[in-house]
Every structure is written in C-alpha cells, then in structure tokens.
C-alpha cells in the first residue's frame, strides 16, 4: 500500500535519510525503530510531503506521491502525526479533532459529532471542551492520534505516540492501535517502547544513521546481533527476549 524506494534526504551536509526503502502492506501494523537521530521522523516527513526527498520515490495506493504537497497526500488517505505535538492551542479538543473530520465531512455539526465519537474511542470524552493548550503531554499525544484518525485515513503514520506515557497509559493505547487496524486503517508506527512494538507489529524496519539496516518480524529483528549492537544498547537483547517469550 505504501512503498518508499531509495529515499534520501539531506540537510546541508548532514544526510538524515540515506537510500532508505520500506514497504507497508494493506491491513498490517508495521514498526519503524532506531535510535534517536536515526532519521525516522525525517523519513515520515519525506513520505508525507513535509520534506521533498533529494532522491528516491514514494508510492501510495499505486500512485507516485513523491513531491506532492502535504495536504494533497493527506487527502489521498496517508496521514501523519507529529512527534513534537502540534495542537491547535486556542481550539477545544473537540474542535481540534473536528478539523480532521472536516477532511471528509463538510457539515459542521456532523464533523463535531464525529469528533466527539473519536474522542470517546480514545478515552478523551471528558476533555472535549477543554482548550488543547491546557492538555497534558499524554493528552496531546492522544489528540494527535485522534485528529489523524478523524480524517478516516487509509494509512496512519504514528510518530512516537507512546513516548512520555506511563506503563498504564501504554497498555491503554496498544489495544486502541490494534482496533484502528481492525477497523481497516493500516498502521506504520515509530516507537521506542519495545514492549509495544513487539506486541503490536507484524514487521519491523530498523533505521540507523539514515540507513535501513534490518527488516523482518519483531523476533527476527530482535535476534539480529548487528541491530542490538548498532543501537539498542547493552542489555536490550535480553529485554526483548524476555518480552517476546
């Protein structure tokens, strides 16, 4: 459904993403992992039109979307969230989510109603009339997901939506993401929380210093010594093994 082929993105002299390729099959949950600064967010941005790739191509739903504007890509059903949350601060939670809903729903009342439903689905039902600026970090992360979901995307790109959440909150959001997929939206997620990656994803891509260094099922990838060595750090292999056991 989504395919990035040999994508390269430079910032001045820095090659943030180098010749990276990945593929996401319709109906799957795929994870993109890698240490901080590996280029994961940049790859997301390059696939969604926020950065123009210096070379390489991105195909979505059978069409070449390389170099399209972000809003054009979103309209085709490929929607991202932001790792650094970007709420519409002065608007309420309901109004925030309704902006997403308006992508497919011109009617104001219907969009607001849909926003309410989605907020409830994500456990934000009691915050609907709160200005987004007053949300906690966890709340803002959820708002990112809620807004993106409200656009009824075919594929949603989640950028570290669990970072900064406590274990209970993570346990809450894992089934939500699974439900999203079960409702028909393909998921590609960037995540550091390995416990969630192992539980959720069917395939894992590993990015390190801009290069894709491994790809496979979570178990396969976790077993690759170069992956562990390259970036997960000491003790990570055991942690993963204990989780997947």
């Amino acid at each position: 459904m989504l395919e990035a082929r040999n994508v390269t993105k430079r910032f001045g002299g820095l090659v943030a993403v180098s010749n990276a390729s990945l593929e996401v099959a319709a109906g799957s949950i795929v994870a993109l992992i890698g240490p901080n600064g590996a280029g994961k967010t940049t790859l997301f941005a390059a696939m969604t039109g926020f950065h123009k790739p210096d070379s390489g191509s991105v195909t979505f739903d059978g069409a070449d979307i390389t170099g399209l504007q972000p809003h054009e890509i979103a309209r085709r059903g490929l929607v991202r969230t932001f790792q650094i949350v970007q709420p519409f601060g002065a608007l309420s939670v309901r109004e925030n989510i309704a902006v997403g809903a308006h992508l497919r729903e011109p009617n104001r009342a219907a969009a607001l109603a849909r926003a309410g439903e989605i907020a409830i689905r994500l456990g934000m039902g009691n915050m609907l009339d709160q200005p987004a600026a007053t949300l906690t970090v966890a709340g803002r992360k959820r708002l990112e997901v809620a807004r993106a979901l409200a656009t009824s995307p075919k594929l949603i790109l989640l950028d570290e939506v669990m970072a900064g959440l406590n274990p209970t909150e993570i346990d809450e959001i894992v089934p939500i993401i699974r439900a999203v997929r079960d409702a028909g939206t393909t998921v590609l997620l960037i995540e550091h929380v390995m416990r969630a990656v192992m539980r959720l994803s069917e395939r894992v891509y590993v990015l390190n210093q801009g290069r894709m260094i491994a790809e496979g099922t979570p178990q396969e990838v976790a077993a690759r010594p170069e992956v562990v060595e390259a970036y997960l750090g000491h003790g990570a292999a055991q942690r993963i093994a204990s989780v997947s056991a």
Partner: protein
Amino acid sequence: MSAWLQRALLGASLLAALAFPLVAESGFWIKFAFTTLLFAYLGQAWNILGGYGGQFSFGHALFFGTGAYAAAIAQTAFGLNPWLGLPLGALAGGAVGWAAGYLSFRYGLRGSYFALVTLAFAEVFRILANAVPFTGAGVGLFVPLQPGWAQLQPGPIGFYYIVLALVFASLWFAWRIENSRFGAQLMAVRENEAAAAALGVDAYALKVRAIALSGAMTGVGGVLYVQFYLYIDPSLAYGPGISVEILLVPIIGGLGTIFGPLIGSIVLHAASELARRIMGDAPGIHLVFYGVLLVVMVRFLPDGLAGLLRRKRKAEVPRNA
C-alpha cells in the same frame, strides 16, 4: 451570562439600533453612528483575515481605496449607478485581495513580513493614484451630488440604515464562519499551519480565499464611504490612516470573535470623540490617541475587550490543566 439574558440583550440592542435615528436629535450623532458602524463593518472584514485567519494586514486601505475608486470612477466617467458600484467595489476589492494574497502567500510570507508587504502594496497604490490621471491624481475625485435613494445618496438617516444592514450581514457572516468548515480550517491554519496541512487542509488556498473575501467586504465599505462624503483622494483612500483604523477596531474589541469588531469600533470612536472634546480638534490628535491606544491594548489586553469577558467567564469554571 445565561442564554436568555444574552438573547434579551441582543434584542434590546437591535431595537435600540433601529430606533436610534428617531431619537438622535442632531445630524452629528447620526454621522458619528455612521462612522462607528462603518468601521465595525470594516473591522469585521479585517477580522476574517486577521482574527480568524491569523494574517495581520497593515494595508487594508488597499482594498478600501480600490473599492472606493472603482465605484467613483465608474460613476463619474461612465455614469454607472452607485448601487451597482457596491458589487463593483466588492469585485475590485476582492480581485486586489486575491492578487495580494496570491503573491504573498504563494511565496510563503507570514507574520511581520506579510504585514509589511501589505503596507507596501497600499503605498504603491497611493503613489500610483497620485500619479495617474483617471483617479484625479492628487486633487482627488468628486462624486456628483444627486440626493435620493435611487443614486445611493439617501441622506444621513438612510446611510445609517444601510451601514447598519451591512454590520448585521457581517455579524451573520462571522457567525457562519465560526460554524463552518471554512472557518474551522481557517482557525486551524492560524493556530498551526503544518498541523493543518497534515490533516489535509490546503492552507494556501484557504488564506487566499480569506483575503479575497476580506478585500471584497472592505471594497464595499470604500464605496459607501465615497457616497457618503462625495469625495476621495489618494491619502484618504490608500493612506496608512485607514489601514490603522481598520485594524485597531478588532484588536480593541477582540480578535477572532463575532462581536469584537462592533465592540471595538464603539469603544474606539466613543473614546476618540471624548478625547476630541477634551483636547480640541487639532489635526493629528485623534491619531496620537489611536497610537497610544494600540500600544496600551497590546500591552495590557492582548485579547481585546471580548477576551476580557471571556477570561472572566473561564476563571469561573474550574478546570483540570
């Protein structure tokens, strides 16, 4: 404020507005009310772009003057009926707005730079209007006196009702914007353009639409101004004075609120009339007052008077941050 009280207040002010000419004993107050309402209307036009869209224009005179000149020239040179001048002014103001928006937003101008470029556009038009013959150059343009509704010169009271109708239309329009997809997306762009784009909002197209709409509305205001005063010249039309007065109104009243421009215009013109009576009618003094007011508002009440009310109301509701 409970809902019924709000409605009662609205109803009462509507009645008061309709009855005003019957009780106003002098032409002075009618004229005062005309100016106040005209700027409430113009301020609302600015508010669409600046308040809801977050794009601060320092050059709304560009649209005001273009509307005014378009209608005045069409009338004096081609004998167009001034009633038709109204849609013509809207068209001219909208077209210039579209062009200014196309140029500045296409090249990604924002914030202070957008403000500067709109000001520069207005200045270019002022210099051109001073230089070309069909605007009457520096001498200005006189519109013939033809009293009567047929030629859009219905006298002060007639003008009062026309501009009152425009204010109502603009309030309704702002309400529509607050409750429409267009408005929701426009506010999203104001708050965070990247996030809006990620949700499929075409920020550029939206901003161009907003400035074209705002320009069209402002152009109509210019036409009415010319018909009322029967005269226009380059500094009246395109000078910074108009641009500043237009933007002051919503900033005083409250950006991005339905009633902000109306409240702002009433407060601004009442206070400036008061200042005039105290300090006399010397040239420039009311603009000194405007300048100081702008500084004081931004310093102490950046959300305007409507923001003050809202802040009070919010403070009453406990919330979990």
